[in-house]
Protein backbone atom coordinates (compact mmCIF):
# COMPACT_ATOMS: atom_id res chain seq x y z
CA UNK A 1 0.00 0.00 0.00
CA UNK A 2 1.20 3.48 -0.79
CA UNK A 3 1.93 5.44 2.31
CA UNK A 4 0.97 9.06 2.53
CA UNK A 5 4.45 10.42 3.10
CA UNK A 6 5.57 9.64 -0.45
CA UNK A 7 5.67 12.94 -2.39
CA UNK A 8 2.70 13.08 -4.72
CA UNK A 9 4.76 13.95 -7.80
CA UNK A 10 6.70 10.71 -7.45
CA UNK A 11 3.61 8.57 -7.82
CA UNK A 12 2.76 9.44 -11.35
CA UNK A 13 5.68 9.81 -13.69
CA UNK A 14 3.54 10.42 -16.73
CA UNK A 15 2.81 14.10 -17.27
CA UNK A 16 -0.58 13.48 -18.85
CA UNK A 17 -1.79 11.31 -15.95
CA UNK A 18 -0.73 13.91 -13.39
CA UNK A 19 -2.65 16.55 -15.34
CA UNK A 20 -5.74 14.31 -15.37
CA UNK A 21 -5.36 13.72 -11.64
CA UNK A 22 -5.20 17.47 -11.04
CA UNK A 23 -8.63 17.90 -12.67
CA UNK A 24 -10.32 15.62 -10.17
CA UNK A 25 -11.90 16.89 -6.97
CA UNK A 26 -10.95 14.98 -3.82
CA UNK A 27 -13.48 12.47 -2.55
CA UNK A 28 -15.27 12.08 -5.88
CA UNK A 29 -16.37 8.90 -7.65
CA UNK A 30 -14.10 8.03 -10.54
CA UNK A 31 -14.10 5.41 -13.30
CA UNK A 32 -10.81 5.03 -15.19
CA UNK A 33 -11.31 3.27 -18.52
CA UNK A 34 -8.15 1.65 -19.81
CA UNK A 35 -6.51 2.08 -16.43
CA UNK A 36 -3.37 0.12 -17.37
CA UNK A 37 -1.38 -0.94 -14.31
CA UNK A 38 -3.58 1.25 -12.12
CA UNK A 39 -1.03 4.03 -11.57
CA UNK A 40 -3.49 6.90 -11.90
CA UNK A 41 -6.25 5.14 -9.97
CA UNK A 42 -3.88 4.19 -7.17
CA UNK A 43 -2.76 7.79 -6.92
CA UNK A 44 -6.34 9.07 -6.86
CA UNK A 45 -7.42 6.55 -4.21
CA UNK A 46 -4.45 7.28 -1.97
CA UNK A 47 -4.00 11.03 -2.42
CA UNK A 48 -7.43 12.26 -3.39
CA UNK A 49 -9.51 9.79 -1.44
CA UNK A 50 -11.64 9.02 -4.46
CA UNK A 51 -13.98 6.05 -4.70
CA UNK A 52 -12.17 4.61 -7.72
CA UNK A 53 -13.06 1.93 -10.26
CA UNK A 54 -11.22 0.78 -13.34
CA UNK A 55 -11.66 -1.15 -16.57
CA UNK A 56 -8.65 -2.65 -18.33
CA UNK A 57 -8.30 -5.01 -21.26
CA UNK A 58 -4.89 -6.54 -20.57
CA UNK A 59 -4.68 -9.27 -17.99
CA UNK A 60 -1.28 -8.02 -16.89
CA UNK A 61 -2.73 -4.58 -16.16
CA UNK A 62 -5.74 -5.98 -14.30
CA UNK A 63 -3.56 -8.29 -12.22
CA UNK A 64 -1.26 -5.46 -11.21
CA UNK A 65 -4.19 -3.19 -10.37
CA UNK A 66 -6.06 -5.79 -8.33
CA UNK A 67 -2.87 -6.65 -6.46
CA UNK A 68 -2.72 -2.99 -5.43
CA UNK A 69 -6.20 -3.40 -3.97
CA UNK A 70 -7.94 -1.46 -6.72
CA UNK A 71 -11.43 -2.32 -7.95
CA UNK A 72 -10.57 -3.09 -11.56
CA UNK A 73 -12.42 -5.39 -13.93
CA UNK A 74 -11.15 -7.03 -17.05
CA UNK A 75 -13.23 -5.71 -19.90
CA UNK A 76 -13.46 -3.07 -22.57
CA UNK A 77 -15.18 0.26 -22.84
CA UNK A 78 -17.46 -0.64 -25.72
CA UNK A 79 -18.96 -3.74 -24.07
CA UNK A 80 -18.99 -2.93 -20.39
CA UNK A 81 -20.09 0.68 -19.98
CA UNK A 82 -23.74 -0.05 -20.74
CA UNK A 83 -24.07 -1.97 -17.46
CA UNK A 84 -23.33 1.01 -15.26
CA UNK A 85 -26.23 3.12 -14.03
CA UNK A 86 -26.56 6.75 -15.11
CA UNK A 87 -24.68 9.30 -13.00
CA UNK A 88 -22.74 6.56 -11.19
CA UNK A 89 -19.55 8.64 -11.30
CA UNK A 90 -18.42 12.23 -10.96
CA UNK A 91 -15.61 11.65 -13.47
CA UNK A 92 -15.09 9.06 -16.17
CA UNK A 93 -11.57 9.01 -17.55
CA UNK A 94 -10.69 7.81 -21.04
CA UNK A 95 -6.99 8.40 -21.34
CA UNK A 96 -5.10 7.56 -24.51
CA UNK A 97 -7.81 5.08 -25.52
CA UNK A 98 -10.11 7.08 -27.82
CA UNK A 99 -7.95 6.27 -30.84
CA UNK A 100 -8.62 2.54 -30.55
CA UNK A 101 -12.39 2.72 -30.09
CA UNK A 102 -14.70 1.68 -32.94
CA UNK A 103 -17.89 3.40 -31.82
CA UNK A 104 -16.56 6.78 -30.76
CA UNK A 105 -19.88 8.61 -30.57
CA UNK A 106 -21.56 5.76 -28.69
CA UNK A 107 -18.71 5.55 -26.23
CA UNK A 108 -18.60 9.32 -25.61
CA UNK A 109 -22.35 9.27 -25.00
CA UNK A 110 -21.90 6.45 -22.51
CA UNK A 111 -19.09 8.32 -20.72
CA UNK A 112 -21.36 11.27 -20.13
CA UNK A 113 -24.36 9.13 -19.27
CA UNK A 114 -22.61 7.32 -16.42
CA UNK A 115 -20.43 10.28 -15.46
CA UNK A 116 -21.09 13.95 -14.70
CA UNK A 117 -17.77 14.75 -16.33
CA UNK A 118 -15.62 12.98 -18.85
CA UNK A 119 -11.88 13.45 -19.09
CA UNK A 120 -10.62 12.41 -22.51
CA UNK A 121 -7.03 12.47 -23.70
CA UNK A 122 -5.59 11.41 -27.05
CA UNK A 123 -2.58 11.94 -29.33
CA UNK A 124 -2.95 14.80 -31.81
CA UNK A 125 -2.89 13.88 -35.49
CA UNK A 126 -2.45 17.56 -36.21
CA UNK A 127 0.95 17.67 -34.45
CA UNK A 128 3.49 19.21 -36.82
CA UNK A 129 5.88 16.23 -36.94
CA UNK A 130 2.99 13.98 -37.85
CA UNK A 131 1.91 16.33 -40.61
CA UNK A 132 5.46 16.61 -41.92
CA UNK A 133 5.92 12.84 -41.99
CA UNK A 134 3.02 12.57 -44.33
CA UNK A 135 3.78 15.70 -46.33
CA UNK A 136 7.54 15.32 -46.79
CA UNK A 137 8.28 11.62 -46.34
CA UNK A 138 4.99 10.39 -47.76
CA UNK A 139 4.77 7.84 -44.98
CA UNK A 140 1.96 7.16 -42.53
CA UNK A 141 2.90 9.10 -39.44
CA UNK A 142 4.65 7.52 -36.47
CA UNK A 143 5.73 9.34 -33.33
CA UNK A 144 6.35 8.71 -29.67
CA UNK A 145 2.62 8.97 -29.05
CA UNK A 146 1.70 7.05 -32.22
CA UNK A 147 4.46 4.46 -32.18
CA UNK A 148 2.90 1.77 -34.37
CA UNK A 149 3.52 1.06 -38.02
CA UNK A 150 0.21 1.43 -39.88
CA UNK A 151 -0.38 -2.31 -40.42
CA UNK A 152 0.22 -3.25 -36.75
CA UNK A 153 -1.51 -0.35 -35.09
CA UNK A 154 -4.35 -0.89 -32.61
CA UNK A 155 -5.25 2.72 -33.32
CA UNK A 156 -8.09 3.03 -35.79
CA UNK A 157 -9.42 6.55 -35.11
CA UNK A 158 -7.12 9.49 -35.60
CA UNK A 159 -8.22 12.98 -34.84
CA UNK A 160 -6.78 16.42 -34.30
CA UNK A 161 -7.52 18.78 -31.44
CA UNK A 162 -9.81 20.75 -33.75
CA UNK A 163 -11.63 17.61 -34.87
CA UNK A 164 -12.48 16.75 -31.29
CA UNK A 165 -13.76 20.23 -30.50
CA UNK A 166 -16.05 19.97 -33.52
CA UNK A 167 -17.34 16.53 -32.50
CA UNK A 168 -17.97 17.59 -28.91
CA UNK A 169 -19.90 20.62 -30.17
CA UNK A 170 -21.93 18.54 -32.58
CA UNK A 171 -22.81 16.09 -29.79
CA UNK A 172 -23.90 18.92 -27.54
CA UNK A 173 -21.17 18.52 -24.94
CA UNK A 174 -19.60 21.41 -23.04
CA UNK A 175 -15.81 21.62 -22.98
CA UNK A 176 -14.72 23.03 -19.61
CA UNK A 177 -11.00 22.71 -20.02
CA UNK A 178 -8.44 21.88 -22.69
CA UNK A 179 -4.84 21.18 -21.84
CA UNK A 180 -2.40 20.87 -24.71
CA UNK A 181 0.89 19.09 -24.10
CA UNK A 182 3.89 19.70 -26.34
CA UNK A 183 6.78 17.40 -27.18
CA UNK A 184 8.81 18.37 -24.10
CA UNK A 185 5.84 17.63 -21.86
CA UNK A 186 4.94 21.24 -21.17
CA UNK A 187 1.24 21.63 -20.53
CA UNK A 188 -0.75 24.72 -21.41
CA UNK A 189 -4.36 25.27 -20.41
CA UNK A 190 -6.48 26.61 -23.27
CA UNK A 191 -9.99 27.93 -23.60
CA UNK A 192 -10.16 26.98 -27.25
CA UNK A 193 -8.01 25.32 -29.87
CA UNK A 194 -6.32 27.82 -32.16
CA UNK A 195 -4.39 27.00 -35.32
CA UNK A 196 -1.00 27.01 -33.58
CA UNK A 197 -2.13 24.87 -30.70
CA UNK A 198 -3.28 22.26 -33.19
CA UNK A 199 0.21 22.34 -34.77
CA UNK A 200 2.23 22.25 -31.56
CA UNK A 201 0.31 19.92 -29.25
CA UNK A 202 1.52 16.33 -29.31
CA UNK A 203 -1.44 15.33 -27.17
CA UNK A 204 -4.32 16.98 -25.33
CA UNK A 205 -6.70 16.44 -22.44
CA UNK A 206 -10.33 17.60 -22.48
CA UNK A 207 -12.69 18.01 -19.56
CA UNK A 208 -16.26 17.66 -20.78
CA UNK A 209 -19.76 17.57 -19.41
CA UNK A 210 -23.24 17.20 -20.82
CA UNK A 211 -24.69 20.34 -22.32
Amino acid at each position, binding site marked *: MVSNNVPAEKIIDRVDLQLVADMIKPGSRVLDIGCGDGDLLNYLVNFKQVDG*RGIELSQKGVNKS*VSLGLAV*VQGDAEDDLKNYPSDAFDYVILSQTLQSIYDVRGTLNELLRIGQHAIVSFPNLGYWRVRFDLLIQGRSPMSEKLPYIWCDSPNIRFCTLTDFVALAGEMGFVIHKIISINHSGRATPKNSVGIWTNWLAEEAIYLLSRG
Partner: protein
Amino acid sequence: MTTVSNSNNAHEGSIPVEPAVIGMPGHNIVLGEQVPLSLVSGQKLGPFTVSYQTYGKLNADRSNAILVCHALTGDQFAAEEHPITGNAGWWNMVVGSGLPIDTDRYYVICINVLGGCMGTAGPRDINPKTGRPFGLSFPLITITDIVAAQKLVIDYLGIEKLFCVTGGSMGAMQVLEWASKYPDCVLCAIPIAGAARHSAQNIAFHEVGRQAIMSDPDWRNGSYYESQELPNRGLSVARMAAHITYMSDSALHRKFGRELQDRANVSYGFEADFQIESYLRHQGNSFVERFDANSYLYITRAMDYFDLAAEHDNVLANAFLNTDVKFCLISFTSDWLFPTSESRQIVHALNAVAASVSFVEINTDSGHDAFLLKEPEFFSILSGFISAAADQSNI
Protein backbone atom coordinates in the same frame (compact mmCIF):
# COMPACT_ATOMS: atom_id res chain seq x y z
CA MET B 1 -18.87 -31.99 21.50
CA THR B 2 -19.96 -28.48 22.42
CA THR B 3 -23.54 -27.67 23.13
CA VAL B 4 -24.47 -24.15 22.16
CA SER B 5 -27.40 -23.73 24.47
CA ASN B 6 -29.77 -25.85 26.40
CA SER B 7 -33.00 -26.58 24.71
CA ASN B 8 -36.12 -25.46 26.37
CA ASN B 9 -39.15 -26.46 24.50
CA ALA B 10 -41.21 -26.74 21.56
CA HIS B 11 -39.42 -28.12 18.69
CA GLU B 12 -42.82 -28.66 17.16
CA GLY B 13 -42.24 -30.19 13.78
CA SER B 14 -38.49 -29.74 13.90
CA ILE B 15 -36.31 -32.59 12.68
CA PRO B 16 -33.53 -33.54 15.12
CA VAL B 17 -30.38 -35.15 13.73
CA GLU B 18 -27.99 -37.43 15.61
CA PRO B 19 -24.53 -37.64 14.11
CA ALA B 20 -23.60 -41.03 12.69
CA VAL B 21 -19.90 -40.26 12.57
CA ILE B 22 -18.29 -39.01 15.73
CA GLY B 23 -14.68 -38.27 16.40
CA MET B 24 -13.67 -36.29 13.32
CA PRO B 25 -10.78 -34.00 14.12
CA GLY B 26 -11.64 -30.33 14.43
CA HIS B 27 -14.70 -28.72 15.96
CA ASN B 28 -18.17 -30.21 16.21
CA ILE B 29 -21.01 -28.10 17.59
CA VAL B 30 -24.71 -28.64 18.05
CA LEU B 31 -26.89 -25.91 16.57
CA GLY B 32 -30.59 -25.26 16.25
CA GLU B 33 -31.34 -26.39 19.77
CA GLN B 34 -33.30 -23.42 20.98
CA VAL B 35 -34.51 -22.22 17.62
CA PRO B 36 -34.48 -24.75 14.81
CA LEU B 37 -33.12 -23.77 11.42
CA SER B 38 -35.97 -23.02 9.02
CA LEU B 39 -35.11 -24.58 5.69
CA VAL B 40 -36.16 -23.17 2.32
CA SER B 41 -38.20 -26.34 1.75
CA GLY B 42 -40.42 -25.31 4.68
CA GLN B 43 -39.08 -27.98 7.02
CA LYS B 44 -37.25 -27.25 10.25
CA LEU B 45 -33.96 -28.75 11.35
CA GLY B 46 -32.63 -29.01 14.88
CA PRO B 47 -30.86 -29.83 16.92
CA PHE B 48 -28.16 -30.80 14.44
CA THR B 49 -24.37 -31.01 14.36
CA VAL B 50 -22.02 -28.88 12.29
CA SER B 51 -18.37 -29.80 11.90
CA TYR B 52 -15.76 -27.22 11.03
CA GLN B 53 -12.05 -26.65 11.10
CA THR B 54 -10.05 -23.52 11.83
CA TYR B 55 -6.53 -22.38 11.09
CA GLY B 56 -4.66 -19.38 12.49
CA LYS B 57 -5.71 -17.17 15.39
CA LEU B 58 -8.73 -14.93 15.80
CA ASN B 59 -7.45 -11.45 16.72
CA ALA B 60 -8.65 -9.46 19.71
CA ASP B 61 -11.32 -7.48 17.85
CA ARG B 62 -12.41 -10.54 15.87
CA SER B 63 -11.83 -8.76 12.58
CA ASN B 64 -9.47 -11.15 10.77
CA ALA B 65 -11.79 -14.09 10.04
CA ILE B 66 -11.89 -15.60 6.55
CA LEU B 67 -14.60 -18.12 5.78
CA VAL B 68 -13.49 -20.61 3.16
CA CYS B 69 -16.44 -22.37 1.50
CA HIS B 70 -15.77 -25.80 0.08
CA ALA B 71 -16.97 -27.20 -3.24
CA LEU B 72 -19.31 -30.14 -3.95
CA THR B 73 -16.99 -32.92 -2.85
CA GLY B 74 -14.73 -30.90 -0.57
CA ASP B 75 -14.93 -30.71 3.20
CA GLN B 76 -13.66 -28.75 6.19
CA PHE B 77 -10.11 -30.14 5.95
CA ALA B 78 -8.86 -27.40 3.63
CA ALA B 79 -5.30 -27.10 4.86
CA GLU B 80 -4.25 -30.30 6.59
CA GLU B 81 -3.86 -33.98 5.92
CA HIS B 82 -7.27 -35.51 5.33
CA PRO B 83 -8.23 -37.80 8.26
CA ILE B 84 -9.63 -40.47 5.93
CA THR B 85 -7.59 -40.36 2.74
CA GLY B 86 -4.32 -39.06 4.15
CA ASN B 87 -4.08 -36.70 1.18
CA ALA B 88 -3.06 -33.05 1.53
CA GLY B 89 -5.88 -30.56 2.21
CA TRP B 90 -7.78 -29.51 -0.90
CA TRP B 91 -6.56 -25.89 -0.61
CA ASN B 92 -3.17 -26.55 0.95
CA MET B 93 -1.51 -24.36 -1.69
CA VAL B 94 -3.78 -21.41 -0.80
CA VAL B 95 -4.41 -21.63 2.95
CA GLY B 96 -1.38 -21.72 5.25
CA SER B 97 1.52 -19.81 6.68
CA GLY B 98 2.88 -17.37 4.09
CA LEU B 99 0.31 -18.47 1.49
CA PRO B 100 -2.32 -16.23 -0.20
CA ILE B 101 -4.73 -16.88 2.70
CA ASP B 102 -2.03 -16.43 5.28
CA THR B 103 -2.80 -18.21 8.53
CA ASP B 104 -0.18 -16.05 10.28
CA ARG B 105 -2.42 -13.07 9.60
CA TYR B 106 -5.96 -14.41 9.29
CA TYR B 107 -8.22 -16.76 11.18
CA VAL B 108 -9.54 -19.25 8.63
CA ILE B 109 -12.78 -21.14 9.12
CA CYS B 110 -13.93 -23.96 6.87
CA ILE B 111 -17.30 -25.58 7.57
CA ASN B 112 -18.55 -28.91 6.24
CA VAL B 113 -21.78 -28.05 4.39
CA LEU B 114 -25.22 -29.09 5.52
CA GLY B 115 -26.05 -32.37 3.81
CA GLY B 116 -22.36 -33.31 3.83
CA CYS B 117 -20.80 -36.43 5.25
CA MET B 118 -17.80 -35.27 7.27
CA GLY B 119 -19.59 -34.59 10.52
CA THR B 120 -22.19 -31.98 9.59
CA ALA B 121 -25.80 -33.20 9.51
CA GLY B 122 -26.62 -35.15 6.38
CA PRO B 123 -28.59 -38.13 5.09
CA ARG B 124 -26.19 -40.63 6.66
CA ASP B 125 -27.02 -39.37 10.16
CA ILE B 126 -29.47 -40.95 12.55
CA ASN B 127 -33.10 -39.98 12.90
CA PRO B 128 -33.60 -40.28 16.69
CA LYS B 129 -37.30 -40.91 16.17
CA THR B 130 -36.58 -44.16 14.33
CA GLY B 131 -33.07 -44.85 15.52
CA ARG B 132 -32.07 -45.46 11.91
CA PRO B 133 -30.21 -43.42 9.28
CA PHE B 134 -32.31 -40.83 7.47
CA GLY B 135 -31.46 -41.73 3.90
CA LEU B 136 -33.94 -39.95 1.64
CA SER B 137 -36.09 -38.85 4.57
CA PHE B 138 -33.44 -36.22 5.34
CA PRO B 139 -34.92 -32.85 4.34
CA LEU B 140 -33.79 -31.34 1.06
CA ILE B 141 -31.31 -28.53 1.53
CA THR B 142 -30.36 -25.51 -0.59
CA ILE B 143 -27.37 -23.20 -0.84
CA THR B 144 -29.43 -20.73 1.22
CA ASP B 145 -29.77 -23.35 3.99
CA ILE B 146 -26.08 -24.23 3.81
CA VAL B 147 -25.15 -20.57 4.29
CA ALA B 148 -27.79 -20.06 7.01
CA ALA B 149 -26.15 -22.88 8.96
CA GLN B 150 -22.72 -21.30 8.41
CA LYS B 151 -24.09 -18.02 9.75
CA LEU B 152 -25.07 -19.81 12.96
CA VAL B 153 -21.48 -21.03 13.32
CA ILE B 154 -20.10 -17.53 12.74
CA ASP B 155 -22.53 -16.15 15.34
CA TYR B 156 -21.47 -18.89 17.73
CA LEU B 157 -17.82 -17.86 17.26
CA GLY B 158 -18.81 -14.29 18.20
CA ILE B 159 -17.74 -12.88 14.83
CA GLU B 160 -19.91 -9.97 13.75
CA LYS B 161 -18.23 -9.34 10.44
CA LEU B 162 -16.21 -11.74 8.35
CA PHE B 163 -13.20 -10.03 6.83
CA CYS B 164 -13.57 -12.23 3.77
CA VAL B 165 -15.67 -15.05 2.35
CA THR B 166 -14.19 -17.05 -0.49
CA GLY B 167 -14.50 -20.34 -2.31
CA GLY B 168 -14.54 -21.95 -5.73
CA SER B 169 -17.34 -23.58 -7.71
CA MET B 170 -20.14 -24.44 -5.24
CA GLY B 171 -18.01 -22.49 -2.76
CA ALA B 172 -18.50 -19.43 -4.98
CA MET B 173 -22.27 -19.92 -4.83
CA GLN B 174 -22.05 -19.78 -1.04
CA VAL B 175 -19.90 -16.64 -1.27
CA LEU B 176 -22.54 -14.94 -3.44
CA GLU B 177 -25.30 -16.05 -1.06
CA TRP B 178 -23.35 -14.63 1.89
CA ALA B 179 -22.78 -11.30 0.14
CA SER B 180 -26.40 -11.08 -0.94
CA LYS B 181 -28.10 -12.23 2.24
CA TYR B 182 -25.73 -10.96 4.92
CA PRO B 183 -23.96 -7.94 3.33
CA ASP B 184 -23.33 -6.33 6.71
CA CYS B 185 -21.45 -9.41 7.88
CA VAL B 186 -19.00 -9.53 4.98
CA LEU B 187 -16.22 -7.07 4.18
CA CYS B 188 -14.95 -8.68 1.00
CA ALA B 189 -16.17 -11.54 -1.13
CA ILE B 190 -14.13 -13.60 -3.59
CA PRO B 191 -16.25 -15.98 -5.66
CA ILE B 192 -13.94 -18.11 -7.79
CA ALA B 193 -15.01 -20.07 -10.90
CA GLY B 194 -18.64 -19.64 -9.92
CA ALA B 195 -22.04 -18.63 -11.19
CA ALA B 196 -25.14 -16.90 -9.88
CA ARG B 197 -27.23 -19.83 -11.04
CA HIS B 198 -26.62 -23.40 -12.06
CA SER B 199 -26.85 -23.68 -15.85
CA ALA B 200 -29.03 -26.20 -17.69
CA GLN B 201 -25.89 -27.98 -18.87
CA ASN B 202 -24.63 -28.30 -15.30
CA ILE B 203 -27.99 -29.55 -14.04
CA ALA B 204 -27.82 -32.12 -16.84
CA PHE B 205 -24.40 -33.36 -15.74
CA HIS B 206 -25.61 -33.61 -12.16
CA GLU B 207 -28.63 -35.59 -13.25
CA VAL B 208 -26.37 -38.10 -15.02
CA GLY B 209 -24.41 -38.52 -11.79
CA ARG B 210 -27.54 -38.96 -9.69
CA GLN B 211 -28.99 -41.47 -12.12
CA ALA B 212 -25.75 -43.44 -11.96
CA ILE B 213 -26.13 -43.66 -8.18
CA MET B 214 -29.85 -44.35 -8.18
CA SER B 215 -29.60 -47.07 -10.79
CA ASP B 216 -27.06 -48.98 -8.72
CA PRO B 217 -29.10 -51.85 -7.16
CA ASP B 218 -27.10 -51.38 -3.95
CA TRP B 219 -28.50 -47.89 -3.56
CA ARG B 220 -31.84 -49.37 -2.35
CA ASN B 221 -33.76 -46.12 -2.53
CA GLY B 222 -31.21 -44.52 -0.30
CA SER B 223 -31.54 -47.04 2.55
CA TYR B 224 -28.20 -48.79 2.11
CA TYR B 225 -26.49 -47.84 5.33
CA GLU B 226 -27.34 -51.02 7.18
CA SER B 227 -26.62 -53.38 4.29
CA GLN B 228 -23.31 -55.01 3.44
CA GLU B 229 -22.98 -53.39 0.04
CA LEU B 230 -22.86 -49.65 -0.58
CA PRO B 231 -23.79 -48.12 -3.95
CA ASN B 232 -20.12 -47.65 -4.73
CA ARG B 233 -20.39 -48.51 -8.40
CA GLY B 234 -22.99 -45.82 -9.00
CA LEU B 235 -21.15 -43.23 -6.93
CA SER B 236 -17.91 -44.02 -8.68
CA VAL B 237 -19.47 -43.60 -12.14
CA ALA B 238 -21.00 -40.30 -10.97
CA ARG B 239 -17.55 -39.14 -9.89
CA MET B 240 -15.97 -40.24 -13.16
CA ALA B 241 -18.51 -38.32 -15.24
CA ALA B 242 -18.17 -35.24 -13.05
CA HIS B 243 -14.39 -35.40 -13.12
CA ILE B 244 -14.40 -35.03 -16.91
CA THR B 245 -16.27 -31.75 -16.52
CA TYR B 246 -13.60 -30.42 -14.17
CA MET B 247 -10.86 -30.70 -16.79
CA SER B 248 -10.34 -29.11 -20.18
CA ASP B 249 -9.92 -31.06 -23.39
CA SER B 250 -6.44 -29.65 -23.88
CA ALA B 251 -5.37 -30.57 -20.34
CA LEU B 252 -6.61 -34.13 -20.92
CA HIS B 253 -4.55 -34.27 -24.10
CA ARG B 254 -1.54 -32.80 -22.37
CA LYS B 255 -1.70 -35.23 -19.45
CA PHE B 256 -2.93 -38.44 -21.08
CA GLY B 257 -3.31 -38.03 -24.83
CA ARG B 258 -4.02 -41.47 -26.29
CA GLU B 259 -1.32 -43.11 -24.18
CA LEU B 260 -1.95 -46.72 -23.19
CA GLN B 261 -1.92 -47.94 -19.60
CA ASP B 262 0.76 -50.55 -18.82
CA ARG B 263 0.54 -52.18 -22.22
CA ALA B 264 2.01 -51.92 -25.68
CA ASN B 265 -1.18 -52.53 -27.64
CA VAL B 266 -4.88 -52.13 -27.18
CA SER B 267 -6.57 -55.23 -25.74
CA TYR B 268 -9.48 -55.45 -28.17
CA GLY B 269 -11.70 -55.63 -25.12
CA PHE B 270 -13.10 -53.35 -22.46
CA GLU B 271 -10.29 -53.16 -19.97
CA ALA B 272 -8.83 -49.76 -19.14
CA ASP B 273 -6.54 -49.68 -22.19
CA PHE B 274 -6.04 -45.94 -22.14
CA GLN B 275 -4.39 -43.97 -19.35
CA ILE B 276 -7.36 -41.66 -19.17
CA GLU B 277 -9.66 -44.61 -18.46
CA SER B 278 -7.39 -45.90 -15.75
CA TYR B 279 -7.15 -42.42 -14.26
CA LEU B 280 -10.93 -41.97 -14.17
CA ARG B 281 -11.45 -45.40 -12.62
CA HIS B 282 -8.93 -44.50 -9.94
CA GLN B 283 -10.73 -41.21 -9.30
CA GLY B 284 -14.04 -43.04 -8.96
CA ASN B 285 -12.70 -45.79 -6.72
CA SER B 286 -10.89 -43.50 -4.31
CA PHE B 287 -13.87 -41.13 -4.10
CA VAL B 288 -16.24 -43.76 -2.69
CA GLU B 289 -13.95 -44.29 0.30
CA ARG B 290 -14.60 -40.82 1.60
CA PHE B 291 -17.99 -39.77 0.25
CA ASP B 292 -21.55 -40.79 0.90
CA ALA B 293 -23.75 -41.47 -2.14
CA ASN B 294 -26.83 -39.84 -0.65
CA SER B 295 -24.80 -36.76 0.31
CA TYR B 296 -23.79 -36.54 -3.34
CA LEU B 297 -27.48 -36.54 -4.33
CA TYR B 298 -28.39 -33.89 -1.77
CA ILE B 299 -25.53 -31.51 -2.45
CA THR B 300 -25.78 -31.69 -6.25
CA ARG B 301 -29.47 -30.87 -5.83
CA ALA B 302 -28.62 -27.87 -3.68
CA MET B 303 -26.42 -26.57 -6.50
CA ASP B 304 -29.13 -27.23 -9.13
CA TYR B 305 -31.64 -25.17 -7.17
CA PHE B 306 -29.29 -22.21 -6.83
CA ASP B 307 -30.54 -19.18 -8.77
CA LEU B 308 -29.77 -15.91 -7.02
CA ALA B 309 -31.64 -13.71 -9.52
CA ALA B 310 -34.83 -15.77 -9.22
CA GLU B 311 -35.21 -14.62 -5.62
CA HIS B 312 -34.93 -11.02 -6.79
CA ASP B 313 -37.50 -10.62 -9.58
CA ASN B 314 -35.06 -12.24 -12.00
CA VAL B 315 -32.80 -9.19 -11.80
CA LEU B 316 -29.43 -10.30 -10.49
CA ALA B 317 -28.41 -6.73 -9.66
CA ASN B 318 -31.26 -6.60 -7.12
CA ALA B 319 -29.46 -9.25 -5.09
CA PHE B 320 -26.74 -6.70 -4.37
CA LEU B 321 -28.58 -3.36 -4.02
CA ASN B 322 -26.61 -0.77 -2.00
CA THR B 323 -23.94 -3.32 -1.16
CA ASP B 324 -20.75 -2.20 0.58
CA VAL B 325 -19.09 -5.55 0.07
CA LYS B 326 -15.86 -5.41 -1.96
CA PHE B 327 -15.98 -8.12 -4.61
CA CYS B 328 -13.19 -9.83 -6.48
CA LEU B 329 -14.31 -12.37 -9.06
CA ILE B 330 -11.92 -14.80 -10.65
CA SER B 331 -12.54 -17.13 -13.58
CA PHE B 332 -10.35 -19.39 -15.71
CA THR B 333 -10.11 -19.32 -19.50
CA SER B 334 -10.46 -23.09 -20.02
CA ASP B 335 -13.26 -23.63 -17.46
CA TRP B 336 -16.26 -24.79 -19.49
CA LEU B 337 -18.30 -25.89 -16.48
CA PHE B 338 -18.42 -22.42 -14.91
CA PRO B 339 -17.19 -20.37 -17.87
CA THR B 340 -16.00 -16.77 -17.68
CA SER B 341 -19.33 -15.59 -19.10
CA GLU B 342 -21.00 -16.65 -15.82
CA SER B 343 -18.60 -14.54 -13.77
CA ARG B 344 -18.94 -11.67 -16.19
CA GLN B 345 -22.72 -11.71 -15.71
CA ILE B 346 -22.18 -11.23 -12.00
CA VAL B 347 -19.68 -8.43 -12.68
CA HIS B 348 -22.24 -6.68 -14.88
CA ALA B 349 -24.90 -7.00 -12.18
CA LEU B 350 -22.48 -5.56 -9.63
CA ASN B 351 -21.57 -2.72 -12.00
CA ALA B 352 -25.27 -1.95 -12.32
CA VAL B 353 -25.43 -1.23 -8.59
CA ALA B 354 -22.06 0.58 -8.69
CA ALA B 355 -20.53 -1.98 -6.33
CA SER B 356 -16.80 -2.17 -5.74
CA VAL B 357 -15.75 -5.04 -7.97
CA SER B 358 -12.57 -6.47 -9.36
CA PHE B 359 -12.61 -9.19 -11.97
CA VAL B 360 -9.82 -11.24 -13.47
CA GLU B 361 -9.85 -14.08 -15.95
CA ILE B 362 -6.79 -16.27 -15.43
CA ASN B 363 -5.15 -17.80 -18.48
CA THR B 364 -4.79 -21.55 -17.95
CA ASP B 365 -5.60 -24.85 -19.63
CA SER B 366 -6.45 -26.58 -16.32
CA GLY B 367 -10.23 -26.17 -16.68
CA HIS B 368 -12.61 -25.79 -13.77
CA ASP B 369 -10.20 -27.51 -11.37
CA ALA B 370 -7.70 -24.68 -11.85
CA PHE B 371 -8.75 -23.14 -8.52
CA LEU B 372 -7.41 -26.25 -6.76
CA LEU B 373 -4.14 -26.40 -8.69
CA LYS B 374 -0.85 -24.58 -8.81
CA GLU B 375 -1.68 -21.40 -10.70
CA PRO B 376 0.85 -18.69 -9.79
CA GLU B 377 -1.12 -15.90 -11.48
CA PHE B 378 -4.23 -16.90 -9.54
CA PHE B 379 -2.30 -17.03 -6.26
CA SER B 380 -0.81 -13.58 -6.85
CA ILE B 381 -4.24 -12.04 -7.54
CA LEU B 382 -5.73 -13.70 -4.48
CA SER B 383 -2.96 -12.62 -2.12
CA GLY B 384 -2.79 -9.14 -3.67
CA PHE B 385 -6.50 -8.47 -3.30
CA ILE B 386 -6.76 -9.96 0.20
CA SER B 387 -3.68 -8.25 1.62
CA ALA B 388 -4.63 -4.87 0.12
CA ALA B 389 -8.10 -5.17 1.66
CA ALA B 390 -6.56 -6.21 4.98
CA ASP B 391 -4.18 -3.23 4.88
CA GLN B 392 -7.12 -0.91 4.26
CA SER B 393 -8.97 -2.42 7.23
CA ASN B 394 -5.88 -2.32 9.47
CA ILE B 395 -5.83 -6.07 9.97
